[in-house]
């Protein structure tokens, strides 16, 4: 899967060296920064501007009936993942579970969220089961259920951070993390933990702040022009969804985990990591760990270090921004600008996993017909083949560069608008953004370097 993931094909006829694309991207950011400073003198994204879709369409799309159907489909797919993982072939590419979890769910839903808004909320199987259980309990007992506990404020997004980190560990660290049986067991454990948490704190409170995938997809959905309010789908000003993000404890860490895990995934294929990893493995080997465990602990160290590095780099930018004045603490600035990390996370995910989604995503049609990998053909699509000629190596590179540059320009725009709203003096607002520009240039260079490492 990893071979397909990163399109290990040489690009022989690029007009300029790959590293020069990095310089070009940095130039685009500097030019965008200057253009924003000159042409965007007032904050525009901080005000809410939402209109329902016309002709009752917004109400129909978010109606109870649609929500019920989507929820039932989500529960069906969750059941299918567990069933195929436990009962199907243990070949990761022939079983439905690995491709569905790592490609369709983890990557495909990011694209869907960015385009159509928080779609996962409707399909979320844990939310659907939670509400179904609550309805059943109310009906059977013929009484109101006891009030759930208050969600602890200091917990913020930390349970989601733990969930996404655990997912990244399963994907990048655990040596048999793509084995269908292990994925099914992990899904069951996560489901059980989610049901317990929802029973304690209430379905919506946990979904909004604690449930890892709801929080993750909701962040990306804020890039979409579509938003559902009070069971009505409407349109909002582009990017205003992100400006309206209310960061809580752990939001910065969550985005650091997302960007850091993609960074580590890219770096793990390059010579820098493959050069130092054997020494770390030997160190853990000498401590008495088996070779497999030594490898896993080494990768865990690498993943954690990369996440901390990304977090530290962002915090460095906010400490620098504090030095220009304005009376804000570095923590206040880190939270005020955290929404700018969302398009960067999107740029990293889109650029790095573009080919995985494009190629392995096609395997969904064959796998849905033969989920267990035992030769069945439920929907007549089991013989669908993956078309690897759907995109060439050079076109892939241009798309990847486009994602990276586009994501960082969006981040710069969001940061500029927030700075204008935050600082009373426009000049001070622009000066504070020198540091955010440095962060963006750093993230852009890192992203393109990682892609060159993965593709090289």
């Amino acid at each position, binding site marked *: 899967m990893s071979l397909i993931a990163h399109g290990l094909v040489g690009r022989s006829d690029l007009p300029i*060296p790959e590293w020069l694309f990095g*310089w070009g991207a*940095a130039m685009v950011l500097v030019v965008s920064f200057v253009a924003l400073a000159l042409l965007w003198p007032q904050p525009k994204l901080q005000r809410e501007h939402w209109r329902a879709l016309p002709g009752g369409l917004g109400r129909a799309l978010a109606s109870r009936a649609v929500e019920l159907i989507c929820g039932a489909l989500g529960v069906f797919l969750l059941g299918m993942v567990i069933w195929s993982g436990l009962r199907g072939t243990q070949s990761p590419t022939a079983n439905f579970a690995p491709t569905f979890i790592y490609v369709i769910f983890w990557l495909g839903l990011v694209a869907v969220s960015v385009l159509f808004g928080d779609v996962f909320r409707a399909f979320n199987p844990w939310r659907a089961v939670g509400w179904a259980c609550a309805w059943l309990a109310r009906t059977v007992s013929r009484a109101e259920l006891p009030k759930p506990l208050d969600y602890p404020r200091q917990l913020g997004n930390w349970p989601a951070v733990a969930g996404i980190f655990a997912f990244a560990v399963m994907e990048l660290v655990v040596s048999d993390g793509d084995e269908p049986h292990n994925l099914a067991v992990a899904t069951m454990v996560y489901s059980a933990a989610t049901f317990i948490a929802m029973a304690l704190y209430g379905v919506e409170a946990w979904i909004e702040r604690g449930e890892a995938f709801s929080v993750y997809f909701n962040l990306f959905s804020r890039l979409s022009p579509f938003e559902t309010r009070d069971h009505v789908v409407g349109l909002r000003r582009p990017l205003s969804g992100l400006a309206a993000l209310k960061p809580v404890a752990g939001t910065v860490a969550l985005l650091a985990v997302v960007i850091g895990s993609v960074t580590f995934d890219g770096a793990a294929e390059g010579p820098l990591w493959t050069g130092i990893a054997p020494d770390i493995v030997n160190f853990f080997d000498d401590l008495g760990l088996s070779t497999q465990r030594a490898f896993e602990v080494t990768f865990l160290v690498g993943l954690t270090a990369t996440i901390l590095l990304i977090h530290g780099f962002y915090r460095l930018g906010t400490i620098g921004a504090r030095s220009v004045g304005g009376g804000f603490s570095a923590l206040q600035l880190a939270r005020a600008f955290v929404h700018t990390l969302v398009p960067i996370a999107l740029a990293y995910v889109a650029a790095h996993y573009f080919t995985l989604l494009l190629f392995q995503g096609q395997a969904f049609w064959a796998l849905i017909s033969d989920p267990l990998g035992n030769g069945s053909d439920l929907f007549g699509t089991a013989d669908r083949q993956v078309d690897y000629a759907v995109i060439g190596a050079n076109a892939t590179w241009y798309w990847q560069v486009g994602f990276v540059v586009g994501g960082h320009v969006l981040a710069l725009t969001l940061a500029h608008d927030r700075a204008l709203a935050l600082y009373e003096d426009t000049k001070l607002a622009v000066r504070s953004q020198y*540091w955010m520009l440095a962060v963006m*240039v750093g993230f852009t260079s890192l992203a393109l370097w990682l892609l*060159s490492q993965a593709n090289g």
Partner: protein
Amino acid sequence: MSFFAHAGHWLTSVAYFIPVLVFLIWLGVTQLRERRRRRPRGRGD
């Protein structure tokens, strides 16, 4: 020896981060000038 033998590889990697380096130097210089501008002038000035 190996360090120089593989220079082709790591120099290409370094090239990606030159814009960051240039930017950080520019930021450092800007900060220094700003600090000097804010510092109150001495008696001899």
